[in-house]
């Protein structure tokens, strides 16, 4: 029974937020689109000229693009696999009758609250340093040769750091979903003689399908643009070994000052993210109706 007056008020209250977000989305995106058609280098001001799709051709055929696309996919895929495959058993374990579960929860969730620059530097130095790091000491203890992480396996090192940051997120969401699972259903299955394994496969897993999908989509959105962890540990190197698309665009824009090419790259990143976003928005939208 909303009157015309309240309807007007409701619209007036909504406008600032919608307007700001609209500007925030449209203006930079339009500028990116515009710059992407220009020859535009900050090192060579005044030489801006329209070049059509030249920047896209340059960006997409640059060997660095393929390398960074591959790194991005490996990074996103590995972190997703690690966080889900470790997160499910961890969440199942924490759903058991555990003494002091709240404290365990606090310990598990903690890495998520650590700022990316801190986690990256602590891992790089205190843990992964080839001589004085804890991992090197542990390796020597059991008679192995310590790994020089950032020289021999730089991408793997970045993957481990990022996975450590996101494992809490996956675990927490999966645990929340597990706790909303109807206990009676499981009990009934057990009374009917279902083994623990089959009740996991036929009851728990299907119930987890949606939260797992949500974890995958949300993590993908953030993982596509991992930046700080690379910025403070490897700077994209050695060579291009840890350059992902986000870092490639950053280095073209703010190190090589090639605005045109970086803008073309930015649009490519937007397109990739939108493909993922499309699915996430649909899932969330379906939920909104329920």
């Amino acid at each position, binding site marked *: 029974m909303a009157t015309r007056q309240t309807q007007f008020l409701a619209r007036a209250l909504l406008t600032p937020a919608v307007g700001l977000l609209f500007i925030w989305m449209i203006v930079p995106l339009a500028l990116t689109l515009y710059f992407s058609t220009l020859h535009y280098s900050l090192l060579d001001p005044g030489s801006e000229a329209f070049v059509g799709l030249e920047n896209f051709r340059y960006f997409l055929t640059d060997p660095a693009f393929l390398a960074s696309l591959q790194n991005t996919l490996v990074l996103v895929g590995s972190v997703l696999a690690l966080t889900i495959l470790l997160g499910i058993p961890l969440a199942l374990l924490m759903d058991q009758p555990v003494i002091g*579960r709240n404290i365990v929860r606090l310990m598990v969730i903690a890495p998520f609250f650590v700022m990316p620059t801190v986690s990256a530097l602590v891992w790089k130095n205190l843990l992964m340093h080839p001589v004085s790091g804890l991992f090197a000491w542990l390796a020597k203890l059991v008679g192995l040769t310590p790994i020089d992480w950032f020289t021999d396996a730089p991408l793997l090192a970045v993957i481990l750091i990022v996975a450590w940051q996101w494992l809490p997120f996956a675990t927490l969401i999966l645990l929340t979903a597990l706790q909303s699972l109807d206990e009676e259903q499981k009990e009934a299955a057990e009374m009917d003689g279902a083994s623990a394994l089959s009740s996991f496969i036929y009851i728990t897993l299907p119930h987890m399908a949606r939260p797992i999908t949500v974890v995958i989509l949300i993590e993908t959105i953030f993982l596509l643009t991992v930046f*700080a962890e690379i910025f403070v540990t490897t700077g994209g190197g050695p060579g291009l070994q840890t350059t992902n698309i986000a870092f490639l665009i950053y280095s073209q824009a703010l190190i090589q000052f090639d605005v045109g090419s970086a803008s073309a790259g930015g649009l490519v990143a937007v397109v990739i993210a939108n493909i993922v976003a499309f699915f996430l928005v649909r899932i969330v939208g379906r939920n909104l109706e329920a």
Partner: protein
Amino acid sequence: MARKETTQRVVISTIGAWFFGFLIFFPILWMVLASFKTELEAFAIPPSFLFFHWTTENYVTVQERSDYLHHAMNSIIIAGGSTLIALLIAIPAAWSMAFSPTKRTKDILLWMLSTKMMPPVGVLVPIYLIYKSFGLLDSRIGLVFILCLGNLPIVIWMLFTYFKEIPRDILEAARMDGATIGRELVYVLTPMAIPGLASTMLLNLILAWNEAFWTLNLATSDAAPLTTFIASYSSPEGLFWAKLSAASTLAIAPILVLGWFSQKQLVRGLTFGAVK
């Protein structure tokens, strides 16, 4: 017949959960320990776990040499300011969509969500150039503004899901009693909305405090918050593990405490209500 909760099962799962929980937490613990060591001990092999010469010297040095408090203050202003402004814009919007929904409300909400999915790097170039020409590079106000816009969709979403849970009957009753919209807002809605507001604020503070794309790219010294300050330890000549650890411990401690308080809301806020 309840499920068997034998002592054996409790013991095994307790040991397992504590073991893995400790393993995940260990890097943070290790960092905190290193912050109380001397530089030599922090670097020493074999490492000492508890029996080292405990010192708080690093904490003093971090402040004296690099003006830690200045950067901490920047973090507080940037995270706090962007959160406050985001709330001021989001509260009316969420209120409007929760209590006077129209046919388009759902579309607007989903559209807002989609703005959050735009990768920041896609708009890095224009934002950088705009900031450069307006003198906003390395300024706190510039960072407040961009973090506020970046988190606005999440804030609106969270508030919306909380407002939605306030029973509408109460509003109807207040309206029948002749309450104006202003009174309705102050006396009826606000008290019921405070828990939701508090957790939204908390989550947004955490996100803004830890934001490390715009802060690294747009701030260099004057306006640099803790994320950028810690990043300055990445240069090889600045390899002081104990001091890095001390600065890091200080930088994450307040947010770790806030985060532990808000873990339930975290799930809700970060999944846009898709998992509760």
